[in-house]
């Protein structure tokens, strides 16, 4: 009786330790629904994901409608569209240059180099901009996916953003 109790106690303790260990080793996750195709919001996203990577968060970015346009190969380096304060675009661009702020693509590249960042293009969004295969998009894109994957992943994320 005493023996079986102590065995039970040991097993319970071991299970508890294993669970704690698992929780400790599981990286936290940030998911982003990236709807925007505007370089100002993409720049902000770049800063955020670098901060997330510095904090050892895994990052999954799901690129939705307008975002997919910015990820098309032919749009690399373009700063045509600004979502906010569009009348101050020249001032904004000049300040970014003066402060040596990276471009949004440089930010995304750096985050991918330093951490676990995956970028998925929504299949529908891709089709809208005539991007049918992964090769139609810049090198940041990891795959084309459906909305179900974003919804499933967002439910297990510690932080979820819509940008």
């Amino acid at each position, binding site marked *: 009786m005493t023996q079986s109790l102590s065995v039970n106690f040991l097993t319970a303790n071991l299970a508890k330790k294993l669970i704690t260990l698992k929780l400790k080793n599981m990286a936290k996750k940030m998911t982003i629904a990236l709807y925007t195709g505007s370089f100002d919001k993409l720049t902000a996203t770049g*800063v955020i994901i*670098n901060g997330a990577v*510095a904090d*050892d968060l895994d990052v999954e970015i799901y690129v939705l409608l307008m975002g997919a346009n910015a990820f098309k190969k032919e749009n690399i380096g373009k700063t045509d569209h600004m979502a906010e304060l569009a009348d101050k675009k020249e001032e904004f661009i000049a300040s970014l240059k003066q402060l*040596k702020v990276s471009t949004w693509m440089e930010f995304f590249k750096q985050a991918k180099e*330093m951490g676990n960042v995956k970028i998925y293009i929504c299949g529908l969004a891709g089709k809208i901009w005539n991007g049918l295969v992964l090769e139609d998009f810049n090198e940041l894109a990891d795959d084309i996916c459906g909305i179900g994957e974003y919804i499933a992943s967002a439910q297990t994320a510690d932080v979820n953003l819509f940008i």
Partner: protein
Amino acid sequence: MNTEELKKLKLDKVVDARGTACPGPLMATKKAIGEMKPGEIIEVLSSDPGTKRDIPKWAVKKGFEYLGDILEDGYFRLYIKK
């Protein structure tokens, strides 16, 4: 640690992130600390004002020891022990 104590520290690494904007100093610090051994000390130079709040919080969260900072003319020196 006070300024005198910080100035006497034996440094294992110095990262000059002056001239880079947020999140430059944080990313440079993360990169450098990744290459260090536990117990080693790093000095980070940053001219980004956000750094003074950002890096100490980050360092403590990551389990490092934040030793303090010195305000210089137009930039900060921050000290972290891995």
